């Protein structure tokens, strides 16, 4: 192959460093590129971008980037659902796979300077939002209030526990967790994540605020309604969409929604943009 032409489908070798169990079927995979130069280039990613992960012999899949570029380590958090994620779950520290990216537009965190940030995550929807939350906390002086609303099915489905503990203890963030079903030890809120907005003691800022929403489709629909009821406009709500992707670079066509190729035009869209795409998400 002609060396002068960049090969957009060529993944680079990565080494798995360690694996951390998050919740049922969800694990965090810490890794680094074998080539230090690749690692350095990759680390310029923005919150909200994604990468294509190759498990040779099984295939390639798009994965959100949960780390913030302000952190030292690179990792993926992946739920085991299909053949590729199962192949990743089968890897042991020291095993090799391959990664290419980062891809996508990411969240325009610089544009949100001086504003309040409200994060609303449902289940594993926290994975892409984690990057923005950590990034915002690392640039704490650039933003006003930071709120995190996080809903999970049960206390056993809360992920990133070390981060949750930090957020609970203040650290410049107002943190409101909730679960659909509590257990004997659960002292916190029980109910869907949108129900938190109107709880006594919770006050969601609306003026000069951006709301980040990520979660399963049902949660997404209801949270949008709840936010609109508070006075949020579609332009103030941003989300990141998930799609089946084969290339990640705007060619294979699988991720197209209406007029957008999610991989290059997204995956981050405002609610206003999502409504203009011309197709259901």
């Amino acid at each position, binding site marked *: *192959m*002609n060396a002068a032409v*960049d090969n957009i489908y060529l993944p680079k070798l990565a080494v798995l460093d360690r694996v951390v169990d998050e919740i049922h079927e969800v694990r965090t995979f810490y890794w680094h590129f074998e080539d230090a130069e690749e690692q350095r280039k990759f680390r310029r990613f923005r919150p909200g971008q994604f990468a294509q992960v190759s498990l040779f012999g099984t295939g*390639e899949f798009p994965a959100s980037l949960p780390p913030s570029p302000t952190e030292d380590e690179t990792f993926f958090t992946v739920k085991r*659902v299909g053949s590729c994620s199962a192949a990743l779950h089968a890897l042991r520290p020291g095993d*090799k796979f391959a990664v290419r990216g980062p891809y996508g537009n990411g969240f325009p965190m610089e544009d949100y300077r001086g504003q309040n940030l409200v994060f609303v995550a449902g289940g594993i929807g926290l994975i892409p939002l984690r990057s923005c939350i950590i990034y915002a906390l690392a640039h704490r002086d650039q933003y006003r209030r930071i709120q995190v609303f996080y809903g999970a099915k049960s206390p056993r489905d809360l992920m990133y526990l070390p981060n949750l503990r930090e957020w609970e203890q203040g650290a410049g963030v107002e943190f409101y967790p909730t679960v659909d079903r509590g257990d004997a030890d659960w002292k916190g809120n029980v109910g869907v994540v949108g129900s938190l907005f109107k709880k006594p003691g919770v006050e969601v800022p609306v003026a000069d605020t951006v709301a980040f929403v990520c979660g399963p489709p049902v949660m997404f629909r209801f949270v949008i309604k709840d936010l609109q009821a508070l006075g949020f406009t579609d332009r103030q709500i941003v989300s990141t969409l998930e*799609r089946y992707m084969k290339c990640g*670079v*705007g060619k294979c066509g699988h991720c197209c929604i209406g007029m957008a190729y999610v991989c*290059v035009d997204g995956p981050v869209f405002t609610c206003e943009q999502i409504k203009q795409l011309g197709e259901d998400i």
Partner: protein
Amino acid sequence: MRTRILARVDVLQVVDLLRQQGYEVIAPFAGRGRDTFFDTVTNANRADIQIHLPNPYYPPKRYVLPHIERLLKVQRMNGGWQIEPTVAAPKRAIFGLRSCDVAGIWHLDRFYLGRDFRDSYYEQRRQNLFLVNVVCTDTERDISDDCFCVCADTGPAARDHFDLQLMDLDDGEFMAVAGTPAGEALFASPIFRKGTAAHVERRHAVLSEVRKRFKTTTSWFSATVRYVSQGRILDKTWEEIGNRCLECGGCTYVCPACTCFTVSDRQVGPDEIERVRIWDACALSGFTRMAGGHNPRRAVHDRRNRRFFRKLAHYFIQRELSVACMGCGRCAAVCHGDIGMPSVVEMIRRATAAEDKLEPVKP
């Protein structure tokens, strides 16, 4: 553009010239019945090359975007992997490319080489490809009732994006038009001579006769583009189109402008894997299905909506500078449900006009 005249008996010498220059020459041949196909020219089949014939259903886009193309060869080595990109970009010439297919390759050029990322596999194949366009002038053999290049504004004679264009002037002579310096370089051969004003007149006379042959003279593209872009198409129209779709994917496989592919790893040896890309079709239900089973586009009419939106929406036309339909008529010929592009355009136009939401006088 530079033009020359050559005798009909010398036309296949263009193939010989290209072969002498080291090109693998692809040309159209006739099989049994309606069947026609592109194949590599050899000494044995050179005399069978057809100048006038129905355009092959299997589109020549496979010479820039193969039906199955290997992207990577991956070998397991000392606990790691050795990843080797593979590209096969032979020096090739397509002889007898119809004007619609010239426009198709130009459309693929803008898609695969445009925007943020350039596809290096496509690029290298394309750089090594020489295009000889033959204008459809035989109203019986070249043009079928499904052809509508005049509506898509791609034919019958391509205006550019070929290296060499050949046109039968119907009096024992062909006109050759050079579209690139590489095409013009062929004019050094003694088979070409300078033409006269009479030849130019003859070209225009032939073309105006040929244009009258097309059955679908109005495809209503412009109105449909507007309706699609404005989201004014009725759900029942998509449902009707969806009901007639057999989900075979045929329309996308024969389309010279369809770009979608899937990527798959296949085991080729105990420690060796190939990553290949394969043409894919948005008509197929698994096209958008994600791991875990969630499928945002479930009903077949959603998927038909998708295909025609992608081809006709103003947003994409602006980005790619043309409707993603070249008017070749292949989808109309292969579709068992009669929902090729001309039919769909007509169905949309009729249904949307019949229930015109913008009609100022309501009943």
